[in-house]
């Protein structure tokens, strides 16, 4: 498999309806927000988690597409335990710490990890091989996603018609509420964003791809994952999340043909007012109802005077 030979930059535009795209552990799982501007945030690691989950689903058990940073139990590990129990061999050594003796050995370990694990090849990983040199820097770098307009999170109280345990039930009974319907009731809380359109930027370095063996096929899989990762991440908390646009700038030169920020500026997002494009900081928008669907926004790509050697690929 030949490594990727061109630099790519991409813009990922996704939205959320009545869900929490990324909870903030510091704020009681409220949707992440920029405290100064109230723009919503989704961390880079949250998006990478979804890419990993998608690849794990779509390429389960496929050679070279294992996922290193996994969620949940590993079935293989269980299988192995079964083998060990039946055959009684395979005594894995229990050394306290093992470091490769030579640089060549460290390289070999790194190469093996890159060949077997999609996420190591793509995002890199820190491995404790040798002193401060066991890092795989992956070609794909992602930034925080940010909502295009300030978000307004809503707290929704919910109830559950059951008690967690006997003690809780007794306490409720003692309170002697005559309405039997409210017996055993527990109150809960959900935080949702009624609607938010988020933009994340990503960078794919062809030179790092060379080092980890990230190939054209891996790029296709990555783009496939970006386009459909939310389709396989449904849960009570997320609401409806969808990738709306995925715009890839492919450079002819492995080092690139234009500054990334100049390319990202070509993707303009504004409000759709009766079919016309309006800038988001347009003062006239103040009287407009808040955006509640994707069609309230317009995404335009400025293709005029594109730098030579840059190709725009609209995946979605």
């Amino acid at each position, binding site marked *: 498999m030949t490594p990727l030979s061109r630099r790519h930059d991409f813009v990922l535009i996704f939205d959320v309806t009545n869900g929490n795209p990324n909870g903030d552990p510091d704020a009681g799982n409220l949707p992440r927000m920029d405290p100064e501007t109230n723009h919503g945030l989704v961390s880079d690691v949250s998006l990478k988690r979804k890419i990993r989950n998608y690849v794990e689903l779509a390429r389960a058990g496929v050679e070279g597409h294992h996922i290193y940073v996994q969620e949940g139990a590993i079935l293989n590990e269980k299988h192995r335990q079964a083998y060990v129990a039946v055959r009684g061999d395979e005594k894995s050594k229990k050394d306290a710490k093992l470091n490769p003796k030579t640089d060549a050995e460290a390289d070999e370990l790194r190469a093996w*990890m890159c060949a077997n694990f999609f996420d190591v090849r793509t995002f890199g990983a820190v491995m404790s091989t040798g002193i401060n040199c066991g890092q795989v820097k992956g070609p794909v770098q992602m930034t925080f996603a940010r909502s295009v307009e300030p978000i307004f999170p809503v707290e929704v109280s919910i109830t559950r018609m059951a008690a967690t345990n006997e003690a809780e039930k007794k306490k409720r009974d003692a309170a002697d509420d005559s309405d039997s319907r409210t017996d055993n009731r527990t109150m809960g809380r959900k935080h949702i964003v009624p609607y938010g359109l988020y933009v994340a930027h990503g960078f794919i370095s062809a030179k790092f791809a060379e080092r980890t063996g990230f190939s054209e096929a891996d790029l296709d899989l990555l783009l496939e994952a970006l386009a459909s990762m939310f389709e396989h991440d449904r849960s009570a908390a997320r609401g409806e999340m969808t990738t709306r646009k995925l715009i890839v700038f492919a450079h002819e030169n492995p*080092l690139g*043909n234009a500054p990334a920020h100049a390319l990202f500026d070509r993707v303009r997002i504004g409000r759709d007012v009766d079919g016309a494009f309006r800038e988001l900081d347009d003062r006239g928008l103040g009287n407009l109802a808040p955006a509640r669907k994707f069609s309230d926004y317009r995404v335009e790509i400025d293709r005029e005077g594109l730098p030579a050697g840059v190709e725009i690929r609209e995946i979605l």
Partner: protein
Amino acid sequence: MAFGIRLHVRGRNALFTRPELKVERVSYDVMTPSAARGILEAIHWKPAISWVIDRIHVLEPIRFQSIRRNEVGHKAPAGAIKSAMKRGDLAGVQLLVDEDRQQRAATVLVNPAYVIEAHFTLSARAGADENAGKHLDIFNRRAARGQCFHQPCLGAREFAADFALVPPDAPLPARNPQAETADLGFGTPRDLGLMLWDIDHAAPGRPSMFFRARLVDGVMEVPAPGSAEVLR
């Protein structure tokens, strides 16, 4: 200075982690010289040259924000990988994130913008026919076109850096007038305390080197390599 360059970098956030506060990371107030070197090396570097940071101009007010994320607690153990290679199956190599969870806060800078002034010197690994002008041209060409080896970042890879070359005869990008406060050393110099200068990758154990950082009218002078101001 013969081979001086100036690079304008900015981004939405930055995290130049203080080595003493690196579990729950807290950023330095200003970009460190080693982070600046990393940005230049992301654009152009060869073993024949080494970048030397001369000064860093701070263009925006220093502001912080806190971000807490779920992170994993462990690195990939080399021993487990080796035994898996020998055995020929992948069992036991994976990392289980939900059993190895650490929630860590990071105090990051908001909307930082800098101008890095730097030059390079030919290193001991340069061949006899090495030409300094060549590397300067390559760097200037790449930076002007937005080319890079990999997208440079402001301290951590999730905080990508936008960069633009400041041509030799062009004036510096304008500083945000709101930034001209005592915070950036306008009026009286501001002492930023000890700051990481760089890490000595050549010495055994890779020791860190520090310097006493001061902001004078928004500019941080960086001591030259080998000078008495670089503390070990």
